[in-house]
Structures are given as structure tokens and as C-alpha cells.
């Protein structure tokens, strides 16, 4: 039997590479490995074990992330993190994490295929996102590195601010919602559908 082939949730779509008429750039991030890690942040032994396995100290401040090289750890909850790293490094890091946290009250799971990552970049990326969420993405505390879980367009999502000025946002959605989220973004990010916080809104042109 041939080796299993990894196919992204949006690979079947023809409009992934080029989307004319958008005010921002949308991109599907592929080849990203994701490990869901749970453990007690107050346990110094667990934190040390996780750090030695991943190479990055787990962030403990709410809604933050920690990056070192190509590994980024996103804070999801007071006892949950999402370790994102290149797919090639996944097997090794995952095995190390499992081994180092063995016997501890901790759990590491390979969740690489559970979520789809859509990258929104360009000025106005935050405004596009704000059309689907009640979270104020323009608040001063939403800076580079901020991770915010939210109800986005009625689905569960997490937004990671990868870069600011110009904005680069990674939107994590569940794989089964990838098509929906993609189409929602295609419709909402059209140039004519630019959001204004106050006053009359532009009427979108098709």
C-alpha cells in the first residue's frame, strides 16, 4: 500500500491560489504540524519537561504565544497549549514530548489534521475578521503574538496575530468548517465590502 498522502481540507478548491478583488490576501497555510498539549502550568516539572521537548517555554500569560525559530506555542487555556511546528519536525518533537511527560498529569495529542489554518494579511485584515466576531481586534492589547479564541462567523476559531503593521493573522478553524470559513472570508473580504466602524456602510458589489 502506498504511503498515506496528506491532503489539506481546502486542496480541492480552485480558488485557493488566486482570489481577485479582495481587499486583503488570503492564503491557506499547509504543512503545519500541531500538537495539543495539556498539563498543569503550576507544575514546574511539567513545564521544564515541555520546554526541553519543544525548545520553547510554554507561555503562561493568557492570550499570548511564544516563538523560537519555526516553533510557536499558542496559549489556549490555563492548562492547554497548541504547539505548531513544521510537519517534518512533528514526529520527533511529538515523541520527545510524550517521553518527557511520561507519568505526569499531562496529555499530548497530534492534532495536525484537526484544524485548517487560513492566513489573512494586509491592512484591514483585522476589520475583515471583526465582521464575524464580537471581539475587538483593534484593541491596543491585540499586538503581535496575541492569540485569541473566539466565536467567528458562528464557528469556533482561534486567531494568532503573527505580525502587525502590516497585519498578518493566522485563523485556526476546525477542518470540517474550512470550506465554510474560506467562502465566508472570500465574500467578506471583497474590496467593495470594506467595513466602516461608524456611519453608513458601503454596499458590496458582486
Amino acid at each position: 500500500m502506498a504511503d498515506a498522502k496528506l491532503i489539506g481540507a481546502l486542496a480541492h478548491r480552485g480558488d485557493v491560489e488566486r482570489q481577485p478583488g479582495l481587499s486583503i490576501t488570503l492564503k491557506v497555510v499547509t504543512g503545519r504540524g500541531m500538537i495539543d498539549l495539556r498539563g498543569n502550568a503550576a507544575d514546574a516539572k511539567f513545564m521544564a519537561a515541555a520546554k526541553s521537548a519543544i525548545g520553547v517555554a510554554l507561555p503562561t500569560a493568557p492570550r499570548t504565544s511564544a516563538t523560537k525559530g519555526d516553533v510557536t506555542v499558542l496559549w489556549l487555556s490555563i492548562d492547554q497549549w497548541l504547539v505548531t511546528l513544521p510537519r517534518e519536525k512533528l514526529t520527533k518533537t511529538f515523541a520527545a514530548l510524550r517521553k518527557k511527560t511520561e507519568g505526569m498529569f499531562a496529555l499530548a495529542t497530534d492534532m495536525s489534521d484537526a484544524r485548517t489554518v487560513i492566513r489573512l494579511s494586509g491592512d484591514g485584515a483585522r476589520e475583515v475578521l471583526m465582521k464575524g466576531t464580537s471581539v475587538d481586534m483593534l484593541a491596543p492589547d491585540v499586538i503581535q503574538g496575541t492569540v485569541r479564541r473566539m466565536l467567528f462567523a458562528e464557528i469556533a476559531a482561534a486567531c494568532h496575530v503573527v505580525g502587525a503593521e502590516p497585519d498578518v493573522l493566522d485563523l485556526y478553524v476546525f477542518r470540517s468548517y474550512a470550506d465554510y470559513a474560506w467562502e465566508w472570508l472570500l465574500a467578506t473580504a471583497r474590496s467593495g465590502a470594506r467595513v466602516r466602524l461608524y456611519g453608513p456602510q458601503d454596499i458590496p458589489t458582486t
Partner: protein
Amino acid sequence: MLLITCPVCGVEGDETEFHAGGEAHIKRPATTDPENVTDEAQRDYLYMRKNPRGIHFERWMCARGCGKWFHAARDTVTMEFKAFYGAREPAPDLGGTASPKAATPRKTAARRKKAGGA
């Protein structure tokens, strides 16, 4: 729209980012004395809920944030949250903000009559 602050992760958000879990501080009789649980106690535990006019202690979950449960004290008259506290903490004494006295049944009946209907 209710604005809620999660005491666990500190996030401030809209009602839609949270999940309401009903009345807080309900004690399960079988936890303390499983041998002697009366039908009445079990009924009250399962079905009887307060519906106060004033401060109501309730459970909420930070559904789109850290995913943890916590408690909140909400004034059902003004819809104002008086306190947010951890899921394992007892209800806070809100002293001066005690619930206003509920209208007596008699008064309610009189008011209904005045309004000219049931």
C-alpha cells in the same frame, strides 16, 4: 447583550462568547449522605430552581476562551453583573447590593386586577 469577564483567564467579552449554565451552588444530597436521601431532597436537587428578583448566583463557561466554568452574581432586575468568582468559591457576600424584596402574591394579584386582565 451581557458583557462578561472571565475570572479564570481575565477575558472580557460578549455574552455570545460564553455559555450560561444555570443556577450555581446547587448541592447534591447524595454527595454528603448517600444512604439517607429523601425523595423531596432529590426532587429539589434535580428540579427546584430559584427565580429571584435581584441577585442571582449562576454558572457560566468561558466557551470561546479558556473553556473553564466560573460563577457570577447577576442582578436579574438591572441585568448587571455584581461579581465574577471561581467555580470552587462560595457565593460572595454582596452586602449593600442585597436583592430587593420580592412583591408579595397579594400585591401582584391587585396589580393584575388594576391592569384589567390575567
